């Protein structure tokens, strides 16, 4: 039997069905548009995306080698006031993440103080012994962070996940805005929305500020390392390189030369200063990590540790967004900032703890259970929408390897309307703001990427599982 989810907070309409202030300007414009205009524009936008090649690849699905992430034309709107509070919380969290990473790879004060169990680091593949005792250029670990937020009420934003490895999706944030501005220019003259388009420039500046000791250029040379055109996020890699004016390189373009990482150009080998890598730690250096990798550069870790190159994000940052670590984030934020966390965590049961496991097993049909190392919405259980058989099967997995799972209550994610054939209809959303870190400070682009579950009632917003995206607006004061 399926349980009814608790009522969700709708970001456009209040309980009486009147429009909330954030959406006042938009709704007024929306009501003035002819009924079929938005839908027509929707197919225009899709044709536009196909032609320009904004697609992503889905692994294991040959027929749909390149698919579009569906784009919904109704924006997700956040007021200036809400954003101020959110960005304070995000900044605090990102500051803590970097301090935490530095501590983990040096003195491990947080473990010594007893706030973080040492067992979480032992045998954790995300913790890289190669990084112990090494400080990355500029002291920055997470040059780019994506903080996944969910909302359950007027003032209730919670962090669902910290993406400290290689967060993706920023190209959709940028293209969604471009598309909206191209389709509805007059809308932007009526509602003042904060700019996102300078993200690539800020990213380039932020990366250049982290040049390694060996860099002898005034303007450091930045390159984006992609696994290649068959990677699901290749469009984004090419897009960002293009927008930053950086080279888009693959492992086969690079080699170690005179203690630097150099790329093969038509004129010879040229050293790279900062490598924005979109290749996982595991594949970065066959000499240090996966010996079968052809995506990385042999010897890059030695060059890195000798100050010959900056790798962004630093190897080993994955330990900070590990789901087992996640449940300790409130303590981590307090430990390193000396402040109460501004953004709350989603309450989390660590199945490795016997009492928590018992609770989770007793209430499985009401909880969301995630794999500690999983991502992309794969391998998770959403209790309330799962069948009896799925629940039984998952229970067996849980009992077999409890330490592999965490559980959270099924959240009543907030909703924002999407455009359907029958008009506007509410769908669940989350928000991923993008954060840049450099020695000069923390820079948060207003808004971020709103992901939306397109199926009615669905809570899974991942693009790999049929989710879509929306343009995300932060209103100007």
């Amino acid at each position, binding site marked *: 039997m399926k349980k009814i989810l608790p009522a969700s907070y709708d970001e456009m309409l209040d309980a009486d069905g009147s429009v909330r202030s954030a959406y006042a300007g938009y709704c007024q414009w929306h009501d003035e548009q002819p009924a079929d205009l938005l839908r027509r524009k929707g197919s225009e936008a899709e044709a536009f995306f*196909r*032609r*320009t*090649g904004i697609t992503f690849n889905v692994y294991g699905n040959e027929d749909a080698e390149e698919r579009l992430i569906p784009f919904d034309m109704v924006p997700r709107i956040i007021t200036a006031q809400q954003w101020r509070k959110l960005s304070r919380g995000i900044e605090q969290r990102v500051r803590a993440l970097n301090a935490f990473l530095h501590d983990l790879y040096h003195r491990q004060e947080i473990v010594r103080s007893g706030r973080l169990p040492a067992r979480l680091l032992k045998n954790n593949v995300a913790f890289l012994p190669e990084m112990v005792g090494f400080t990355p250029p500029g002291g920055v670990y997470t040059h780019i962070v994506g903080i996944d937020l969910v909302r359950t009420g007027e003032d209730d934003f919670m962090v669902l996940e910290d993406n400290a490895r290689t967060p993706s999706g920023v190209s959709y944030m940028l293209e969604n805005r471009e598309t909206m501005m191209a389709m509805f220019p007059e809308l932007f003259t009526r509602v003042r929305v904060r700019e996102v388009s300078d993200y690539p420039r800020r990213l380039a500046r932020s990366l250049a500020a982290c040049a390694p000791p060996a860099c002898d250029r005034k303007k450091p040379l930045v390159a984006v390392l992609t696994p290649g*055109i068959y990677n699901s996020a*290749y469009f984004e890699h*090419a897009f960002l*390189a*293009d927008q930053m004016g950086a*080279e*888009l*390189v*693959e492992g*086969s*373009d690079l080699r170690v030369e005179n203690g630097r990482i150099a*790329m*093969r*150009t*038509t*004129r*010879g080998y040229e050293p790279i200063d900062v490598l924005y890598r979109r290749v996982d730690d595991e594949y970065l250096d066959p000499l240090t990590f996966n010996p079968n990798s052809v995506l990385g550069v042999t010897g890059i870790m030695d060059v890195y540790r000798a100050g010959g190159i900056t790798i962004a994000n630093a190897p080993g940052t994955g330990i900070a967004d590990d789901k087992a670590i996640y449940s300790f984030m409130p303590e981590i934020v307090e430990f390193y900032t000396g402040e109460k966390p501004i953004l709350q965590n989603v309450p989390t049961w660590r199945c490795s703890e016997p009492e928590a496991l018992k609770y989770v097993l007793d209430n499985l049909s009401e909880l969301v259970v995630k794999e500690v190392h999983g991502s992309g919405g794969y391998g998770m259980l959403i209790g309330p929408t799962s069948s009896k058989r799925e629940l039984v099967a998952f229970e067996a997995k849980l009992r077999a390897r409890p330490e592999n799972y965490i559980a959270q209550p099924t959240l009543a994610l907030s909703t924002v309307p999407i455009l359907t054939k029958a008009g506007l209809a509410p769908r669940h959303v989350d928000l991923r703001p993008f954060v840049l870190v450099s020695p000069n400070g923390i820079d948060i682009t207003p808004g971020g990427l709103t992901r939306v579950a397109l199926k009615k009632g669905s809570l899974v917003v991942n693009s790999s599982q049929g989710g879509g995206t929306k343009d995300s607006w932060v209103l100007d004061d």
Partner: protein
Amino acid sequence: MLGRSANGIFWLFRYLERAENISRLIEAGFRMALTRSASDATDEWRSLIVTLGLRQAFEARHGTEYTGPHVFNFILRDKDNPGSILAITEGARTNARMVRGGITREVWESVNDGWMQLRDALARPVTETRLGAVLDLVRRQSTQVRGAMEGTMLRNEIYNFARMGSFIERADNTARILDVKYYVLLPSVSYVGSSLDNVQWENVLRSVAGERAYRWLNAGRMDPRGIAEFLILDERFPRSLAFCYSKLRSNLASLAREYGNEMHSHEILRDADCQFHTATIEGIFEQGLHEFIGKFIRANTALALQIQRDYRFTE
């Protein structure tokens, strides 16, 4: 720029050029087949497969049944043919994706748009009725990409690598067509001039989109020496070997200016280009047309390899 990107842009334009030339070959073959008896039509279709070096692959698939639809579907879209127009166009698009940052939005969109249309058009077998429209699509894509490039791309190294890809490929294709048809052009002692030969000669010209230009320049006279001279030595005709090489020379020269030094490929090209200024068609026929073309194709391949080596296309 990255060596890999130079390789990508070079092959993007080689593939586009190749697809365009193959489509023209099919069209000329189709026209010949329509005007001939059934057995001669079969010969014509077979000769098309031979020109493209596909005989073994085709016969493995269809035996010796050289019917029109078998032949043009094999060339256009057969999965057993790794050099099909569909595969080549896909290859062009893959390369364009790889060098997306080096080409303008207009160039990318015309490549991508052309590929999407062609993929749809080739999703099912092509009938004789649809053949013309499909071939048109292939040529239109090539024309559009070329136009987008002319109109929007910086005249820098990327442009030069793109052009070199086009002209290396075009010279190769023109030479190959000549090579397969050279016996048609060989004036024999007993030559009296039959209408059949006239049609064959015209067909050679049609394969390289040269029949109108040739007629215009020669006031309608058809003779094999004239045609061979036109395709090999006439610098005014954009698909002649001499034209391709004069372009290659200017693109390589502008690359040398940009980089501040010449490479080994400059030397090779200087020698190769020189022969077009000193050679006469009489000399070529004396040496043997077949030998001349064979030598040219080998030298052209060697030049392409040298460019790839000089500019570090691969490791």
